[in-house]
């Protein structure tokens, strides 16, 4: 069976250091105002505790990607292993993918005048390495998994604060943050 690579975000381990976002920016040599991975703090209405919890999100490499369906120049490609790759060289900057992706994964590069997004560092994966963000995570909150090999019932696909787009079937999986332990002296 072919692989279906996905990011697994352990929200209980994530400390919101943004090391993943910086490693992504560094490895992919992104423009100063560009990010492919972003760390979103959970709103207090969702996680009402003094401790914070975070959603570290990049492209979700959906099973049925909205960007791929929306792109008029066929600049998106879905690989056998589930990774959705954007070919910047054929992009004409129509921003239709940006309008269409519910997760805000494709971003507009205002200098180069084209869209761009996370490629799950497929060149690194092909070379047997981990994506830059996964490798950089100091708490191992971000890992790379194969959805065809893990027991999906253990993980959350649509946590609160994350758009539930069942038709697209995003590949990212989450481990929810636990309630903070109160230690009384």
């Amino acid at each position: 069976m072919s692989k279906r690579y996905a990011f697994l975000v352990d929200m209980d381990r994530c400390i919101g250091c943004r090391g993943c976002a910086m490693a992504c920016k560094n490895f992919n040599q992104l423009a100063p105002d560009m990010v492919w991975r972003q760390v979103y703090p959970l709103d207090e209405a969702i996680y009402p505790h003094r401790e914070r919890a975070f959603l570290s999100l990049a492209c979700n490499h959906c099973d049925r990607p909205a960007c791929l369906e929306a792109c008029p120049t066929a600049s998106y490609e879905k690989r056998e292993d589930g990774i959705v790759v954007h070919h910047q060289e054929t992009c004409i900057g129509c921003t239709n993918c940006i309008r269409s992706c519910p997760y805000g994964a494709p971003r507009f590069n205002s200098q180069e005048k084209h869209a761009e997004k996370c490629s799950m560092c497929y060149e690194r994966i092909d070379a047997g390495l981990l994506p830059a963000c996964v490798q950089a995570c100091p708490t191992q909150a971000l890992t790379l998994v194969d959805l065809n090999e893990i027991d999906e019932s253990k993980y959350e696909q649509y946590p609160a604060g994350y758009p539930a787009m069942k038709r697209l079937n995003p590949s990212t999986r989450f481990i929810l943050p636990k309630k903070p332990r109160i230690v009384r002296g």
Partner: protein
Amino acid sequence: MNYEFPLVFFTALTQAAVGISLVAAWRETRTECIGLFSFRREWLTVFVLASLGLLASLFHLGDPKRAMTALVNLSNSWLSREGLVFGIFAFFALINIFRRSKLFVFAAAVFGIAGIVIQGLTYAPVSMPVISNAVPMCIFALSALCLGTSLTQMAEENGVSKMRTFLLVILVILLAALPFVWKGGDVLSQETAALWLSSVPFWGGIACLVLALVMSLIGRRCIVMGLLVLAGVILCRMTFFADTLHTATRIGMPY
């Protein structure tokens, strides 16, 4: 505020062109109207509006020089299909300027209708839940018909003025009711409703459409009415593109 002016003018102008072509096609079926109109001028208007619309859409692109490559993904992308269909529509409008025939008039009308349907699907992305439905298609179809019946040299006795009045009433009610319907929805819908209700272009557009409606009701048929409808459609379209919230704006917050 990003009003997406290229998209505003692209959609409004192509819809005006389609509306006029639909009125022209309808007139072809009524022999008593033949001879009363300057067909050449009318189809020239359709062609110029459609061409200006397509030209405006180029300003939306990061690299307009490669605009033709937007036709590559016809099997998946509604945007590719939209470009192709409006291109064919403009081609038939051009033919009708020089060699008008029933076949070409109806061909233009059919491609015009297809263009509106495809436009309704292109601008109903899954990422904008409040308009990821039939709403854009209804707004675009009503806009096309209101513009078509307001901008052509229609004879008032053809019953078109009553139709125009009716269509304007429906368009105004639909546009004005949408934010109030959204107010009863989830957080994203409520926030979109608040943005639309506080939008100056939105209320300006509604005011233009209401003024045009009053002129239509009292039987004042003049170019000002057509321009008021066009201004109303453009102003409301600015709100449509700028103030409709994307799901990504609330990541990490409750939906």
